[in-house]
């Protein structure tokens, strides 16, 4: 536009010069006329409208400036419009997407204005971790949840999608581009990134070397909360000794040292304590580490992993035992009875009935070990021998017990098996466990107040799980790609249909029908590449998506994960941050370090 204006002006000047020459020669005296024309929006000269000034001499003396009398033309174009008239906006303002976004804008502004930004205002903190719940998993689970409710799906929101603040976490470990749960959860719960495979220790550790633990132990948010007199709890659908929950309470040179039988001889003789033992000795170990500290231990522990707490002797089998000998411990210790001796008023439960009978108003401590190993996938829960609670049920019960402490509580909740279903290449279970996590988060949001409870939802790492192709809106997320305007599945270059969700690597295609246990896939060798899915119901529980690279187990992925937050300090969850930053958000929200320092000083 600017270039055009310059050209017009140059042209006009050239005309003026020529006419000036004539005027001198003929000595005529014509009246100079100036005309201002308003240019409408969208005009050729000025797209945003403006004024056109025409100047010339009335050579035919008719009192008007005729076109051939114009000597100079000047354009004064308006700046781009900063607002449109209601009439211009009508296509937008009546549009539902537009209206929804306006409402969301107002809500977002209210959220920003209303957030408690001062430090130390969070009485309670709940950290939810979806193990392996990358962004694509959240998106696909959201669509599946919506479709399960009869909607198209894409417009649906998981509970944590409604949280006012969100950002990204960079998940890499100090020594690994693509991380594991041990290093990532240590970063989140201690504020320090560390190596892959180690728990609660910094990067100066050598994985698997017990002698390098001493002096490199980190302190966790759970421990700080405990020192501060808050009620503390850990809930997971994985073994409670598994990497993610372990990083809240244990220090270990290897994530796999879940019980003494998992440790090399030199680690045992070197004085390293297995993870299960550290859980039961949490109170004693914390008091030993910080002189003068008097804590009361974890109030709520719920998850799987009973085998790491029982002696390797069939006499100790529970009614829920899967193996011929349930316990794995080779040191003859029964950590369940040890826990009961430490907390005589506490309640140990191992099945759904015991869980249901818990009186949360009177319970002082609850120790729930609901499975010999990991708890069941949510979709597979019906197959548990003695029955076990869901993640949302455990979350509700945990909060009901923890909120008996007037000072507040710190709770960590892990959905541990999203990761396992992805490893098995089974989107059905990964997404259904993510939906169950969403329900658990909703329970927490309903049971607490935005005024005094910080809730953070995130993942430790992602998976190589993709949502691909060009399926039409509302196409079943676990189905085959059906293009916009079509009723039949799209065909790939090989002439066969393909699914929307899939994996870059792993075991590949399985068609196990209504099998709700994702791990049944491991019984066969990898079967990567393409299969004819024409007659296959890819939405069934037992369908395992195709994979490109054959691996015995699908792998983690290295991209960022989402972080969602609500409550005091949640405004700090914004932008792209190192994963270790999350500890500092929680610390700020509840003054964890400051208060613990004060406690230790007294």
């Amino acid at each position, binding site marked *: 536009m600017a270039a055009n204006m310059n050209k017009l002006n140059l042209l006009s000047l050239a005309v003026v010069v020529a006419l000036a020459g004539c005027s001198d020669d003929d000595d005529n005296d014509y009246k100079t006329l100036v005309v201002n024309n308003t240019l409408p929006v969208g005009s050729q000269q000025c797209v945003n409208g403006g004024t056109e000034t025409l100047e010339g001499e009335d050579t035919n003396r008719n009192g008007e400036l005729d076109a051939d009398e114009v000597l100079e033309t000047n354009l004064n174009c308006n700046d781009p419009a900063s607002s449109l008239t209601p009439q211009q906006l009508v296509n937008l303002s009546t549009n539902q997407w537009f209206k929804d976004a306006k409402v969301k804008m107002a809500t977002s502004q209210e959220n920003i204005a209303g957030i408690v930004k001062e430090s130390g205002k969070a009485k309670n903190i709940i950290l939810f971790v979806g193990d392996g719940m990358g962004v694509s998993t959240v998106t696909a689970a959201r669509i599946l949840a919506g479709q399960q409710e009869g909607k198209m799906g894409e417009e649906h929101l998981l509970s944590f999608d409604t949280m006012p603040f969100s950002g990204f976490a960079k998940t890499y470990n100090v020594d690994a581009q693509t991380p*594991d*749960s041990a290093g990532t959860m240590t970063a989140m719960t201690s504020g320090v990134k560390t190596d*892959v*495979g180690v728990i609660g220790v910094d990067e100066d550790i050598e*994985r698997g070397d017990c002698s390098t633990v001493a002096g490199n132990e980190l302190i966790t948010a759970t421990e700080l909360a405990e020192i501060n007199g808050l009620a503390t709890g850990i809930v997971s659908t994985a073994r409670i000794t*598994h*990497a993610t929950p372990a990083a809240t309470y244990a220090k270990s040179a290897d*994530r*796999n040292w879940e019980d003494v*039988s*998992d440790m090399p001889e030199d680690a045992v003789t070197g004085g390293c304590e297995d993870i299960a033992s550290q859980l039961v000795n949490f109170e004693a170990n914390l008091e030993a580490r910080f002189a003068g500290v008097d804590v009361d231990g974890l109030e709520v522990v719920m998850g799987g992993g009973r085998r790491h707490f029982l002696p390797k002797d069939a006499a100790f089998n529970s*009614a829920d*035992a*899967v*193996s*011929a*000998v349930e316990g794995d411990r080779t040191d003859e210790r029964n950590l369940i009875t040890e826990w009961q001796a430490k907390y005589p008023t506490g309640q140990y439960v191992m099945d759904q009935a015991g869980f249901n009978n818990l009186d949360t108003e009177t319970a002082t401590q609850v120790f729930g070990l609901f499975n010999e*190993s*990991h708890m069941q996938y949510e979709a*597979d829960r019906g*197959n548990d*021998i003695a029955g076990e609670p869901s993640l949302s049920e455990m979350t509700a019960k945990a909060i009901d017990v923890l909120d008996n402490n007037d000072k507040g509580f710190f709770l960590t909740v892990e959905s541990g*098996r999203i*990761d*396992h279903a992805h*490893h*098995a290449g089974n989107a059905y279970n990964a997404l259904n466990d993510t939906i169950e996590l969403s329900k658990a988060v909703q329970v927490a949001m309903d049971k607490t107040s935005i005024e005094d409870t910080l809730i953070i939802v995130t993942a430790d790492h992602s998976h190589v799980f993709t949502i691909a192709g060009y399926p039409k809106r509302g196409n079943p997320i676990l189905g085959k790609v059906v293009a916009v305007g079509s009723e039949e599945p799209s065909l790939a270059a090989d002439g066969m249909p393909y699914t929307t969700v899939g994996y870059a690597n792993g*075991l590949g295609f399985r068609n196990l029908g209504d*099998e*709700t*246990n994702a*791990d*049944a896939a*491991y*019984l*066969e*060798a*990898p079967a990567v590449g393409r299969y004819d899915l024409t007659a296959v119901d890819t939405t069934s529980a037992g369908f395992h998506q195709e994979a490109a690279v*054959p*691996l*015995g*187990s*699908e*792998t*983690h992925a290295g991209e960022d994960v989402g972080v969602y937050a609500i409550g005091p300090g949640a405004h700090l969850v914004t932008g792209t941050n190192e994963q270790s930053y999350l500890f500092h958000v929680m610390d700020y929200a509840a003054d964890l370090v400051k208060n613990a320092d004060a406690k230790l000083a007294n």
Partner: protein
Amino acid sequence: MKLVILSLALLSPLASAAQCTIDSQYMQASYKVSQQHEVDTAVHTQQFTLWRTLSQAAQQDEQLVEVWQQLSNQQLRPIRYFVQDKRGIEYQPSEVKAKQNFSSKQQLVSDELLAKMTLQSERGEGCDKVQKYSLKQADTTIEVSWVVNKKLLESMHITKPTGSQTIILQSVSFDKQTVQQQFAVWDNYQTTDYADIGDNESDPFLAKMINLGFIEHSAPGFYDTNGKTLKGGHHHSHH
């Protein structure tokens, strides 16, 4: 014990049959598998051992042991032991129809398949009573020699247009202590949940699992209850 059985056998064939079933609950049986394909006249042979207790069954060869445990809720839980590495992978109970399948694990030929077959002849008495069965299904013929009161497969022969497969009992013993000890040896191997394999790429044994995939232990197809997947041999293949 043998004397007791013998005397019971003399007293009552019925009591004897029940007693030999009880006495054969703990079993170690060695089998030879011979396979011959139509296009390849060479006979391929393999050996494996079937172990069983009341609630467990195992098939063992040089490298791999596949154990199936029957749980209190009738589900089956498989475990694979890798003998050279002294390591095991534990799987979750699968939702197979446990009862019928567990008989196939314990006996190599399931009760359901036997029920489908036609009794051709019988010989012997009491514990040694052997029944001959046959079944023709499409182009497949199955012949089974079955020591009925010991629930012991003596032989099985499968003939298809593409080749034939024979499984023959080489030796058998019913020493409870030996069987229990063998299961205890495997139970002491370090085991890992299959669900945890993906998180353990730093473990050389498990890394092999992740990068190369599992060593497929192709189940002997001849004990399939439907007689459908009778193509398998007892072999290992790396993928």
